[in-house]
């Protein structure tokens, strides 16, 4: 753990912009109970981003970053997509290397950090879109589950390749018309949460991000289980309001609607995961 890397030297503090000083003075480091309720009062780990106005993914980002139990020792790996437009603005060590290799890079980072810092907890989290997680990166995603890598994988499913201009993805619903599927998608949405269970994840959730408190709880559970037991997978619906023709203020409503159908809350955990979650609850950390 190193809050020190955020601590500004007194001699040079006068010259630092206020938003960087705030990151030292008003950020929520060193408190595993931090959560989405801190958002209005604390310095966030992400402030500016270049996602579309009203993008549910931007809300998901804020909730997830606010929920990290150990931000001072968390490394986030991402991939190509809308998410990669946000990463330059996050106040954590992040990496974007290629499209689809995020779980492989994360595996290397996690294993080396365990080897280099056996007495510290270093969380490694993958945040990537559906194209990166399920299409081009499916091999690396599933293989990291098979190998029981102790990382948390979070998929932002907007059911389309949004950043490249709206092409069909494996997560697109059958029949939906997108670019590269001009007659409508010919095959079913990939049941990624089920693949994650079958591939060895110990904690799997499918949900929308319509409820911040619920997102917080799930993220914390996933991270605690990954630390002690093995891979965990969170599948979040973050609709692309632009590509499905909704207004900037329609995102929440769209998620609430799907909360009742194809993104109905689904949670799976192994016995080992359950033990961790119950213990963390007793400790007051969830």
């Amino acid at each position: 753990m190193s809050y020190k890397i955020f601590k500004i030297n007194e001699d040079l503090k006068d010259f630092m912009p206020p938003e960087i000083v705030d990151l030292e003075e008003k950020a929520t480091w060193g408190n595993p109970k931090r959560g989405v309720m801190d958002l209005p009062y604390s310095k966030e780990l992400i402030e500016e981003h270049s996602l579309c106005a009203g993008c549910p993914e931007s809300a998901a980002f804020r909730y997830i970053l606010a929920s990290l139990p150990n931000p001072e020792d968390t490394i986030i790996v991402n991939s190509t997509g809308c998410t990669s437009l946000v990463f330059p603005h996050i106040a954590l060590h992040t990496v974007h290397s290629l499209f689809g290799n995020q779980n492989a890079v994360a595996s290397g980072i996690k294993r080396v950090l365990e080897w280099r810092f056996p007495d510290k907890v270093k969380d490694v989290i993958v945040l990537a879109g559906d194209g990166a997680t399920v299409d081009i990166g499916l091999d690396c995603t599933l293989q990291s589950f098979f190998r029981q890598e102790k990382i948390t994988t979070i998929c932002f499913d907007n059911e389309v390749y949004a950043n490249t201009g709206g092409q069909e993805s494996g997560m697109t619903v059958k029949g939906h018309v997108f670019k590269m599927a001009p007659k409508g998608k010919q095959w079913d949405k990939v049941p990624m949460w089920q693949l994650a269970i079958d591939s060895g994840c110990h904690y799997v959730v499918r949900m929308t991000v319509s409820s911040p408190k619920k997102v917080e709880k799930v993220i914390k559970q996933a991270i605690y289980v990954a630390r002690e037991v093995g891979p965990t997978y969170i599948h979040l619906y973050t609709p692309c309001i632009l590509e499905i023709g909704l207004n900037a203020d329609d995102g929440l409503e769209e998620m609430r609607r799907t909360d009742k159908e194809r993104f109905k809350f689904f949670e799976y955990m192994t016995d080992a995961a359950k033990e961790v979650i119950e213990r963390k609850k007793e400790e007051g950390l969830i």
Partner: protein
Amino acid sequence: MAKLGPSGYSPYPVAMYEDILTPPPGKALLFNEIVDEEIAMREAAKAMLTRENPTIFPGPQVLYAWNEEAKEKARLVRKIAETLGAKIIPMYDYRPKYPKIDPEKEINPNHPNLTIWHNNIKACIFIGVHCHYANVALKIIRAETDCFTIAMCGNAGHEDAMITLRDQHTEELEKFIRVAEEVKKELGK
């Protein structure tokens, strides 16, 4: 480092392709000459004391208190700025900044020229910037501006700066302050 810029667009000028290497241990680089550290320090102080709007760009390795040396170096950087009458503009991280930077308050390695243009900086010192980002920034500055660049590096130095000092730790920074005070006297400042 053969010439002061600006030297135009791509292909970017890169000192290495003009056969200029980082200086060997114990030495410094003054344009394309390998010289004693003290000579380079004197010239660096002179450039900072005689050119318009001299500015120090401290990087993360001295801005943050991430170890004991960093704390001590921060104190010395401040003292150097006072001795040279230089401004301090921090390069506090390396992420590209969105939507725009405030060039009066910060410098970013991805477009360092904006800060130099805006403040009409004619001499600067890079210190505590990770070598890769210092090199990327120094190449851009050389290409786009006529700023006299000085690199005080804790490792092997930066051949794209007009003056590069290498292996600069607290002892060397203290020496630089002494040299700068002498040069200041000589210049009658």
